[in-house]
């Protein structure tokens, strides 16, 4: 029953996240005909240096439907909104939840179990956010005369889930440190932005770049799973969650 309390606490965040991501996924599929028409126009765009290279790469990707879906959804919208909602789902731990802290602590349940149950419930919600909106891609693709492989969706969603779990865990850990919702959320988002920027400039092409793992770029480009990045992300999430449990078991309420 413990999961139920946490579900009550986070269900609106989860449902809003689900709706936003589903709308975004459906929007991407429905915009394909317009994008296809714009690609020849975009091809004539000239640019030099890093930006120019990125524009050309982006235009090239969008010539074909799989490249368009990957670049717009798995590399962009899912990562952007998904990271935000992962941090949102992770915030509001025992310390910073709006109500019921002492009530929860007075139940005949160890703090370790309280936090693990919350982490597990949040991860299930996060998994649903990773998979359900992405499933709309193969479902809706026939409406624009295209198909998209279910297997690809599952691989991308799984990679996204493992990598974004780091930001969920970080927010959960921060929620055992701060007694409000905002600081854990803002710090987790700031960490994601900092990692994104450093990945762009300091670690381009790294196996451990978290957003590269999240988008499963190696799978899209050459059919290889980013095993090293996945294992590193899972290990980081587990370590951060363990830190959250240690922190919550040691603190006074």
């Amino acid at each position, binding site marked *: 029953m413990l999961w139920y309390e946490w579900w009550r606490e986070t269900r609106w965040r989860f449902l809003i996240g689900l709706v936003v991501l589903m709308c975004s996924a459906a929007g991407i599929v429905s915009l394909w005909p317009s994008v296809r028409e714009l690609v020849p126009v975009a091809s004539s765009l000239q640019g030099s240096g890093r930006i120019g290279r990125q524009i050309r790469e982006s235009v090239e990707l969008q010539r074909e439907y799989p490249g368009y879906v990957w670049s717009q959804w798995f590399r962009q919208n899912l990562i952007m909104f998904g990271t935000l909602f992962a941090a949102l789902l992770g915030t509001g731990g025992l310390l910073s939840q709006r*109500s019921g802290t002492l009530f929860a*602590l007075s139940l*005949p349940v160890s703090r370790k179990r309280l936090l693990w149950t919350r982490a597990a419930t949040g991860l299930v919600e996060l998994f649903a956010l990773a998979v359900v909106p992405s499933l709309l891609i193969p479902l809706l693709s026939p409406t624009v005369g295209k198909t998209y492989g279910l297997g690809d969706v599952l691989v991308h969603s799984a990679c996204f889930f493992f990598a974004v779990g780091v930001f969920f865990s970080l927010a959960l850990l921060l929620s055992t440190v701060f007694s409000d919702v905002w600081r854990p959320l803002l710090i987790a988002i700031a960490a994601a932005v900092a990692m994104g920027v450093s990945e762009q400039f300091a670690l381009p092409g790294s196996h451990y770049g978290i957003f590269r793992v999240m988008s499963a770029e190696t799978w899209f480009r050459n059919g290889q799973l980013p095993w090293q990045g996945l294992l590193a992300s899972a290990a980081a999430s587990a370590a951060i969650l363990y830190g959250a449990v240690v922190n919550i*078991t040691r603190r006074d309420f």
Partner: protein
Amino acid sequence: MTEPPIIETAELRKNYGSTEALRGLNLQVPAGSIYGFLGRNGAGKTTTLKILLGMTRPTSGHARVFGLDAGAPEASVAIRRRTGFVSEDKDLVDSMTVEEIVRFTAAFYPRWRSDLAQRYLRKFDLPPGKKVKNLSRGTRTKVALLLALSRCADLLVLDEPTSGLDPAIVEEVLQAIVAHVAGEEMTVFFSSHQIAEVDQIADRVTIVDGGRVVVDGAIEDLRENYRRIHLVFDGEAPKPAFRAPGIVRTYRKGRELTVLLSMGVERVVEEARALNPVSVDVIPVTLKEIFLESVTKED
């Protein structure tokens, strides 16, 4: 054979930074008692209750409930399984309805009595479908009490159960506690700074001040033993030098000398008469007076 105490603390200390919340608290709460834990705001009452339930760890000393170490995580879970708790803020899950929080709580207690929960729902006139966040403070208190009573706990720990309630609800809550305890074998340990309610329902009391126990005993015994002796002299009252034990405080003002004592009234009266006063009056003392005398600093 004497039954072991349900709650026992020994030299319990708790520091928050440089603030000493508890300074060597020693408590023994016997089984089956309604035990009032009286003290001013900030006296260390809530800290003590939180330590007993494993929510806060002591800096030093020991706290045992049902003979189990309250500071050990596993033992603490076992303690909470047998304890009903109502926090000072009546903290509940705001997003749930009354019905949902009853169902949710019931899942954690194997001895939960649905019939009792239903009875208290009716008795307190609680709205099952209303969200907890929309309840008044009085109704929240009743919900918290329902959850604490229906689990058939061996111990009820109540932190300022009536704070912020109007007199009618205070009476209703106190009556419910007393009526429940009368029909069950349970111990009630409740903190308060309302002397009247402790006087009304408790059979034993500990007065705590500055993180230390200053008065402890059965209320009847306190009433029996505490006395104020009022002496009037012809001239200036002499400086008192009583040898008898139990002197709590003495006041001297002009021709009058007042002595508050916790025991041995005959011996003190005997010593007082040796001072040749014009009159000696022995006056009973109320719990309120005992409390005020115990927690007020001497000038």
